[in-house]
């Protein structure tokens, strides 16, 4: 069975600085998708970024980028120029034969 591990339950970063959230996964599949979702306090979960496993190029969305290492089964999220609105729970998710979410990392932004 597939697993998704987020080893950092909580992280803090100074406003305007850069932070990296870690995610590792385990799978025997070769074709799958990886996601980072953001869940702000008392608000709905939204997609931050998506990566197709067959693409070698790392996905980027404005201040958000990923470091996808397929052989290492690692999928980290980098947030540049952190803003107060980035404070949230961040979930790494895998979609292949199964859909699996990690336990999440709570990100605090320090003003």
């Amino acid at each position, binding site marked *: 069975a597939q697993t*998704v591990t*987020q080893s950092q339950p909580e992280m803090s970063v100074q406003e305007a600085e850069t932070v990296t959230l870690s995610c590792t996964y385990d799978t025997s599949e070769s074709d799958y*998708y990886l996601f980072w*979702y953001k869940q702000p306090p008392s608000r*709905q*979960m*939204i*997609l931050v970024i*998506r990566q*197709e496993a067959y693409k070698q190029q790392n996905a980027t969305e404005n201040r958000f980028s990923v470091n996808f290492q397929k052989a290492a089964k690692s999928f980290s999220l980098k947030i540049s120029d952190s803003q107060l609105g980035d404070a949230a729970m961040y*979930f790494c*998710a895998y*979609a292949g034969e*199964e*859909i*699996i*979410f*990690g*336990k*999440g990392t709570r990100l605090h932004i320090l003003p």
Partner: protein
Amino acid sequence: EAGVAQSPRYKIIEKRQSVAFWCNPISGHATLYWYQQILGQGPKLLIQFQNNGVVDDSQLPKDRFSAERLKGVDSTLKIQPAKLEDSAVYLCASSLLQAYNEQFFGPGTRLTVL
């Protein structure tokens, strides 16, 4: 464009009672998902529908949980009878087609079982 709607937002019941949750996905989205999110954990997929057919219900506790999606649009998730460990937020999400598409989540229903 309207988002995913869920009701009720909050529900408190006694153990062994029954409860039902409703979800209306984004118009045109073929795939609908129900997740259980226990406090401090990530969402766990309970069931995935594509149109009105079940794609994956491997993690649905079928002795007490049931779900349907009549006419391939809105959906209901039922728990009967509820246990203390069912206390969680139940999230509904929808996507255009497959799980590799972006999922759009509803606000969730917070269930407390006493």
